């Protein structure tokens, strides 16, 4: 067999289109329960009940209600499941499929495909959906439930699909792998039953080109009313920060251990209000005769120096972060303007 050495512009456009489908359409695709169960049965030990749920809380609820009297019943299920998933997905499928791509594609094409498709999908799905989902599963499941979060396999699946677009023959194991990736990438299980998490119904990616989720007016990832992921600029936050940031307390903000979350808390609370309520210290203040506004230079309690100023057109108040060595409002304005040799004569 001859290696494929070239690809057309149309093929690369199709690869790009595939990337977007894996990030959006496929991530929120809803499959019938019967289809999900049928695929799950290909990987699960025999005669184990399989439930399809849209929240880990539902899995937890069912597992508690149906707890068998003997905790040792099927005590090997977890080990069996781990072994089945690992062997079917990892050693078996990945090596076969990856080998198929490498064998058929010229190295340069494979490298381009990897860069354009797999690396991008992996960045998005692994760093964001997988990471956040895993955190939420950790906190939502009880001791009796274990999980396997395999959404990052979608990146590999997209990569193989991309290979087909470039002309690589479909491997006979591809169908099984694709079915698993589409229907049931997230598993939870107790000693006696399996729960498959449905795909989310909505996801909101950042629009600034940086991988990650973002929604400042609702959940960034919506599975069901019982299970949602809240994220701002790719950072995992809670519902209060997104939907009711004004109800945060200064204590909540100061007790926040994650510095990125603390920054988002203050941004959404409003820097002017935060400075007013948190014990900031005024360094300098003046009337800005050019803008016709008033402004003040302050030190916040978290150690930042901020020029609190306003826009003469919109009347919005900003708290611009300036270097700590800035001592006056005038110096702060000059620094914001790049310390250039200019005379500001008006503003709007």
């Amino acid at each position: 067999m001859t290696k494929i050495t070239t690809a057309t512009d149309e093929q690369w456009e199709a690869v790009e289109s595939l990337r977007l489908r894996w990030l959006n359409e496929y991530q929120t695709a809803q499959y019938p329960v019967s289809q999900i169960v049928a695929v799950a049965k290909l990987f699960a030990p025999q005669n184990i009940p399989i439930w399809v749920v849209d929240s880990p809380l539902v899995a937890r609820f069912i597992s508690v209600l149906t707890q068998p009297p003997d905790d040792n019943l099927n005590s090997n299920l977890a080990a069996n499941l781990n072994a089945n998933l690992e062997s079917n997905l990892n050693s078996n499928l990945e090596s076969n499929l990856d080998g198929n791509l490498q064998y058929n594609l010229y190295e340069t094409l494979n490298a381009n495909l990897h860069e354009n498709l797999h690396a991008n999908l992996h960045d998005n799905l692994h760093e964001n959906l997988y990471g956040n989902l895993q955190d939420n599963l950790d906190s939502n499941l009880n001791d009796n439930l274990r999980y396997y979060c395999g959404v990052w396999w979608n990146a590999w699946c997209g990569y193989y699909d991309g290979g087909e677009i470039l002309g690589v023959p479909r491997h006979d194991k591809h169908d099984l792998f694709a079915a698993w990736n589409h229907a049931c990438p997230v598993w939870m299980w107790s000693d006696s039953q399996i729960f498959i998490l449905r795909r989310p119904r909505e996801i909101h990616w950042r629009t600034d080109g940086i991988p990650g989720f973002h929604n400042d007016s609702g959940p960034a990832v919506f599975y069901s009313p019982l299970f949602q992921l809240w994220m701002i600029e790719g950072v995992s936050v809670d519902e209060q920060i997104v939907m009711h940031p004004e109800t945060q307390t200064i204590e909540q903000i100061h007790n926040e251990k994650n510095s990125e979350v603390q920054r988002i808390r203050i941004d959404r609370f409003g820097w002017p209000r935060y400075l007013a309520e948190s014990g900031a210290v005024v360094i300098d203040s003046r009337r800005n005769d050019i803008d016709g506004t008033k402004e003040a230079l302050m030190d916040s309690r978290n150690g930042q120096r901020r020029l609190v100023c306003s826009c003469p057109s919109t009347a919005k108040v900003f708290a611009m972060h300036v270097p700590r060595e800035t001592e006056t409002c005038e110096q702060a304005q000059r620094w914001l303007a790049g310390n250039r040799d200019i005379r500001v004569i008006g503003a709007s």
Partner: protein
Amino acid sequence: MQVAEHIKAIQDTAEEIRNDSEQRFPEAASPGDCWRQGDLYITLLADIPADTEKVKKPELQLVPGSTQGSRHCLDSLSGVTCYQITDSDQLAGPVLNLTKERTLTHPEHGNVVLPPGVYGIHYQRDLDAEERERRVLD
């Protein structure tokens, strides 16, 4: 005066003077005089700087590559020759040589009418949470 009083004074003054009507860059301005439209600085220059090259396909928007920041736009490219500084930093925008009067529009900040002349554009900066310098986007 307490912090809260300072901030209230800043807010109250801003409301009193709030004005998003069209402004005009003064004809009597001298090179080095600058108008600020939100996070954008428009400076009258004596001439086209030497370290620039002509932009082949100029755009109406003056802050490319950003959805939010792309709202500072020229009303037309008629009479506009656009240059880019060859060794520019992240704060440097285009240089505009206007042979006709043009208006720099923005949906929130007042529009600014620019008489014919050479104008250098640069962007406002601030610090991010890690004290790294960055271009402000409004």
